Structure formats: C-alpha cells, structure tokens
C-alpha cells in the first residue's frame, strides 16, 4: 500500500488531519475555561444557585472535551519529530524553547489544577476551588500565547540567524517571540475561541429554550452567550481586518491567494466575491467581482495599485483554490455570527429574548459555526504559507523526515481510524450531556455517577448534589 505515493504529501495530510481534529478542542476549552471561571465568580459573588448549576453543567462537558484535547495534543508534540524531523532539527533551537515554555507555563498549570477543579470542590472549599478554576483558565490562555507565537514565527520569522549546521538560532528572543504577525494572530485566535464557545453555549441554551422558555439555567446561559456574540463578533471582524493588513505587509502571496488575484492591477483591484480559481490557467473562472473594492479594503484607496501572483515565481505559489475558499467560508461565517448577535440585541431590546423561536432556531443552527470558522481560518493561514514551513526560508519539501511513503501512509490510516472511533464517541457523549437540560442541584463530573446507577436512588443523588 502507498507505493509510489509522495511521502511529503502523506505527511502533510497527516498533519492537516490530526491538527484539524486537535484544534477544535482547544478552541472550545480556551473559551469554556474562561466561561467556567466567570460562572464560579458570579456564584461566589451572588450566591445564586443558578450559577453553580450552570458551572457544574458545563464542567462535565469541559472534562470530556479537555481530555480529548490533551490526548490529541500529545500526538502533535511528537509529530514534529516523527514526520517532520528535518524541520525539528533546523528549527528546534527556535521553536523548541517556545514549546517547552508552553509546557512549563501552561500545560502543567492546567493539568495540575484540573483535578482539583473537577473533583476537589468539597475537599478544598469554594475559594481555593475558584483559584484552581482560574489557574486552568489562565493556563489555556498562556498556552495560546506560546503556540501562536511559535506558529507566527513560522509565518513571519524574525530575530533569528542561521548557524554552521544550517539550523535557525535565535539572535534576539524578544524579536522571535513578538514577531510581526504574533499580536494579530493571538488576538484573532483568542477572540475566535471565545466566540466559538459563546456560540456553543448559546446554541445549547436556545435548544432548551425551544422546549421550555422558562428554564432558568437555559435563560441565563443563552443571555450570557448572546451578549458575548453581540460584543465580540464586531471586534473580531475588525481584528481580522487588521490581521489581513499585517499579512499583506509580510506575506503578500498569501493575500493574493485569499483574494484570487493572479494578475496585478495598476489602478484599483476588484474584490472577487465568488468564483473558481484555476491554479493552472492562473485565473479565476466564473468570477463575480466588485471593481476596485479590494484596493479599498486592503489599501484604503479605490485606485491603489495591487500586485498579483504574476509577480511571484510560480514555484512559490500557495494552493490558491483552498486558500481562496477557506477564507470566504471564514469571513462569511464571521458576518453570520455578527448577524446573530445583532438579531439577539434587537430581540433583547423588544423583550422577546426568551420567546423568539426564530432567534432560538438561528442560534441552534449557529452552534457549530465557530468550529467551522476556526478550521477555515487555520486552513487559510496554513495553506497560504505554502510551499514553505518557515515562510520564505524553509520549504515544506525540505522539512520532512527521511521516511518511505508506506510508513507515513500506514500511520495516517491508523490515525484516521482511531480518531474517528474515539472522537466521534466523545462528541456523541458531549452532545448527550448537552441534550440534558440544566436543572437545579446539578452535579459536577462526579465519579459517583456510576455508583448511583449501581443502585443508590436518583433521589439520594439529587440531595447529594444540592448539598
């Protein structure tokens, strides 16, 4: 099997597959950890029972999602060595320390306090337990800091030199860490994680409101989530715009691919809304375009000249169709999310927040939108960086391990089978938890759940939970 295949293509497929599965979980747990911290803080401040119920409700879901994030993350940390050993050798002195800092400052913090957060409320008391929740939430954000810094360095490398062995080495660590695209990418991704989580929470709240408009827990979570979407979606669109301008400055070829600009335009480039980019013929077929709008968006002037891929050697072109379409999916969803936020604001203002079934149906439909947007965004930026791993400096073809195609192909098949078996089950368990309405006396991710199933009556369990 896989004789005659290209080992590099298989390694890329494996990275894309395992990474896509992985990123979904951190995107959700970054936002959810912060949401849990907010819920617990509100509970400590107001002592209203609805907050601790919601906390316990979402904590169970968090536990399942976090576990899946951990195990799919371990795979990522070893994949640099297994499939991309040349990359590891050459960039290890720069990327390696950033990942080591991620482990030391973030992973340990999350893992160290997770046990107390999940199981320790009665053992340590509410205040110390809140500290644990806070530490987990802060850990997820620190993790985002380091891994996005490392990724941004691959996109916009800075502050490095090359040694005699052909390795990248840091000349100035601050310039490496705070490389040109990092601040933009960090803001864009953290906001994306918050939006993703708010859409999931809002979708679940709406689902239960459709059954029972008076359910207190569903009302609170829906309202909180819609505030988040309303406020953050416009900020995210602005942040994305700024990120795009930064990309135009540092990775122009990526923006050309996103825009479908094969040709340069001397006086005003059109904004291609839709079309089919043909990489071979170097043109966008069936294009629907608005004249000069792209120049207005990217250069803030209708007649500004804009270079196209015809100024870039063909062997340095990213795959245009994927970049082009992934970008459109992300942006389209971004505006839909903003639309949901505005619609909820209107309903809130008219006092129809918990009654409008149209709003609730829209929110349920948008529940998974954040995940799709995050995936589309990452596909845009990673595909747009091709054919390089370190932009302009190290080609993807020169980054792979000296492995034969059958080895990489077999492991790819193994990952596909295992991930589908395991993560599909996990998603089903999460959906099952979400299908239960949040109720008074909600229990945390108790290890007692099976004990109750084994014979202790549910009533006793409920009393236990209300304690």
């Amino acid at each position, binding site marked *: 099997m896989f004789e005659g295949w290209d080992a590099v293509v298989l390694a890329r497929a494996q990275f894309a597959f395992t990474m896509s599965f992985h990123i979904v979980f951190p995107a959700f747990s970054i936002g959810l950890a912060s949401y849990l911290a907010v819920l617990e803080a509100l509970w400590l401040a107001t002592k209203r029972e609805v907050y601790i119920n919601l906390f316990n409700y979402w904590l169970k879901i968090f536990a399942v999602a976090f576990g899946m994030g951990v195990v799919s993350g371990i795979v990522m940390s*070893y994949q640099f060595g297994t499939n991309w050993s040349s990359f590891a050798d050459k960039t290890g002195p720069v990327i*390696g320390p950033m990942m*080591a800092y991620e482990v030391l400052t973030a992973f340990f913090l999350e893992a160290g306090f997770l046990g107390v957060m999940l199981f320790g409320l009665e053992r340590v008391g509410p205040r110390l337990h809140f500290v644990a929740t806070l530490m987990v939430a802060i850990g997820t954000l620190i993790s985002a800091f380091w891994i996005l810094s490392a990724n941004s360095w691959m996109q916009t490398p800075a502050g490095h030199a090359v040694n005699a062995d052909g390795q990248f080495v840091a000349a100035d660590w601050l310039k490496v860490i705070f490389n040109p695209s990092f601040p933009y990418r960090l803001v864009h991704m953290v906001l994306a994680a918050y939006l993703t989580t708010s859409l999931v929470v809002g979708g679940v709240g709406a689902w239960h409101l459709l059954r029972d408009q008076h359910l207190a827990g569903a009302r609170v979570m829906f309202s909180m989530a819609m505030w988040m979407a309303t406020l953050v979606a416009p900020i995210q669109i602005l942040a994305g715009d700024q990120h795009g301008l930064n990309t135009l400055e540092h990775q122009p070829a990526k923006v050309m691919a996103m825009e479908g600009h094969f040709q340069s335009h001397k006086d005003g480039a059109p904004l291609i809304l839709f079309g089919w980019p043909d990489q071979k013929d170097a043109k966008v077929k069936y294009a629907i375009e608005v004249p000069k709008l792209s120049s207005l968006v990217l250069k803030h002037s209708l007649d500004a000249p804009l270079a196209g891929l015809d100024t870039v050697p063909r062997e340095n072109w990213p795959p245009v169709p994927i970049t082009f379409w992934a970008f459109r999916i992300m942006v389209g969803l971004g505006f839909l999310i903003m639309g949901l936020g505005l619609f909820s604001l209107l309903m809130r203002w008219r006092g129809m927040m918990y009654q409008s079934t149209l709003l609730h149906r829209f929110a349920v439909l948008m529940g998974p939108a954040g995940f799709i947007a995050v995936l589309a965004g990452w596909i845009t930026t990673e595909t747009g960086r091709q054919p390089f791993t370190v932009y302009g400096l190290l080609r993807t073809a020169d980054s792979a*391990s000296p492995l034969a195609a059958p080895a990489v192909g077999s492991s790819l098949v193994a990952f596909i089978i295992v991930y589908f078996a395991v993560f599909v089950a996990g998603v089903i368990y999460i959906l099952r938890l979400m299908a239960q309405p949040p109720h008074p006396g909600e229990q945390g991710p108790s290890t007692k759940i099976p004990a109750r199933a084994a014979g202790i009556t549910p009533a006793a369990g409920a009393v236990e939970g209300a304690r």
Partner: protein
Amino acid sequence: MIDLTIIWAFIIAFAVFVYVVMDGFDLGLGILFPVFPQKTDRDVIMNTVAPVWDGNETWLVLGGGGMMAAFPLAYAVLMPALYTPMIAMLLGLVFRGVAFEFRWRTQKARNKWDIAFAGGSLVATLAQGIALGAILQGIHVEGRQYAGGWWDWLTPFSVLTGIALVIGYALLGATWLVMKTEGALRDRAYHLSWMLLVAMLCAIGAVSVATPFLAVQYTQRWFAWPNIILTAPVPIAVAAVTALLLRALGDKNDHQPFFLTLALFALSYAGLGISMYPYIVPQSITIWQAAAPANSQIFMLVGVSILVPLILGYTAWAYWVFRGKVRPGHGYH
C-alpha cells in the same frame, strides 16, 4: 567540567524519569485492569488516578518538547528511527486517556472503554520499553538523519526491554493500589505485587546480562578498572532495595512497597545513564553534538529553574488534596 549541555542532559533525564515515576503506576493500573474484572474494583482503581493522570502525562510532553528544544538533532534522529513504536504509543495513549472520562459517560459501552484503557496502557508501555531497547542497541545515522530501515527497532533485545517495562509498570501499579485502596482489593494487590516483584527481578537481571553484549562500550563502562568501583554500587543497591521491598511486602506495609519500587526504577534508570553517557543516540551522537546553541539553552534554563520547582510544588499539593485511601462509592465528593 560541568557545562550547559550536561545540565540540560540531566534536566531531560529528570523529566523522563519523573514521567516514568508518575505515569508508570498510572499505566500499570491499565495493565492490571484485566485481573480486576469487577466493576466496583475498576471504579475505585480509576478514582485513585482520575484527578492526577493528566498532570502525569504532561511530563511526557515536556520530555519530547524539551528534547526538541535542547537536543534538536537527537529528537530529529530518534523519532523517525522509532517511528512505529512512537505512533503505537501515541495511539495507545489516546485510547487510555479518553477512557478516564468516557467510561463514566456510558453504561452500554463502558466495557469497551475499559478494554480501551487496558489495551491502550499495555500498548503504550510496550512501545516505550521497545523504544528504550531500540535506542540502547544503537541507531544507524548518516549525516544529520536517521538512515536505517523502519523495522530496525524490532529485535529480541527491544522486545525484552518492552516486556520488562510492562512488568515494571504493573508492579508500580500494584504497589500503588496497596497504598491507595483497602480490603479485598488491597489484598489482591499485595498478592500481585509478590508475583510481579519476582518477575521484575528476572527482567532486570535479563536486561543487565544482555546489555553488555550489545556493544563493547557498555562492557567497558561497567566492568573495566577503575569504572567498576563506581558501577559496582548499583547492583549492590538493587540487592539492598529488593531485600527491603521483600520485607515491606511481608510486613503488609501500605506505603513502603510503592516507594521502594520507585527506588528500584531509579537504580535501573541510573544504570541506563551509566551505560549511555555521554551519548544521547548511543554510538553515534553525543549530547554535545546534539545540543542546541547556548542561547537556546540559557533561555530555557531560566524558565526551568523558576518553573519546575513551582510545578513540583503545586503537583505535590494536588496529590495532597486527594491523599488517603479511595473507598468504593466514595468518589471525590
């Protein structure tokens, strides 16, 4: 002379050892799962590690990530050389890791996730042991890349180290249960500890006898004068710890067997270090050849010296919070 590279070699060795200490018993519980078929026993066994397993596995990420950072060349050579065991280990860890949460989320499929937990733990341990053996027996390197085939890792010696590690982790798991459980479950764990200890001593013996035959370097390191003055205490200490361990098991002591087993691991690990030093890829690449440039080492050393003590501190706190025996039906509420 002590230089940054030696310090880093010790830090990576320390991270890997802490991983073995923390995840060893954790994986061992999975290996022992088939001999505890009762649901109540399994629930208790799971509850003894549920709050800490995630932190335990984080040391593996530090070992891998730290190696890429401090010894990128070694990481780049070893990972492709150990390709199949590494992939097997990762997939095993996926199965066992998700089982911690999944088995509480379903009644129908709980048995499936129990199998995933046991099977995943066994595969991950076997893969780690095989990887260790494959490293010890030497790896074919040309230039800055692995140059062997993708089945080179599979030899009788690597299979021996694989089985040895399975026995060792199972012993750690059994003595952990002695410490964390009570009643009939603890009695069975005692019984298992006896058998596993005997098996572990055989395994240590077999690996110790086989290692010098792998390369002249190992023979000289251990038996040449004057090295033997420094190496002889290792087997003597193994004998002493074994005697203490036998007595502790005879006395039905709760805590000592686990910690004495850890001491056996530490001694075996020290023996490994004696065999390998100064190579990180035996016979091919020394720690100095593989080392990252000084400014990478210094940058990380700052972080490690501040953060690792902190990490050890709050990890110890988490273990303290969940101290004591775990009883059936008494989860963590």
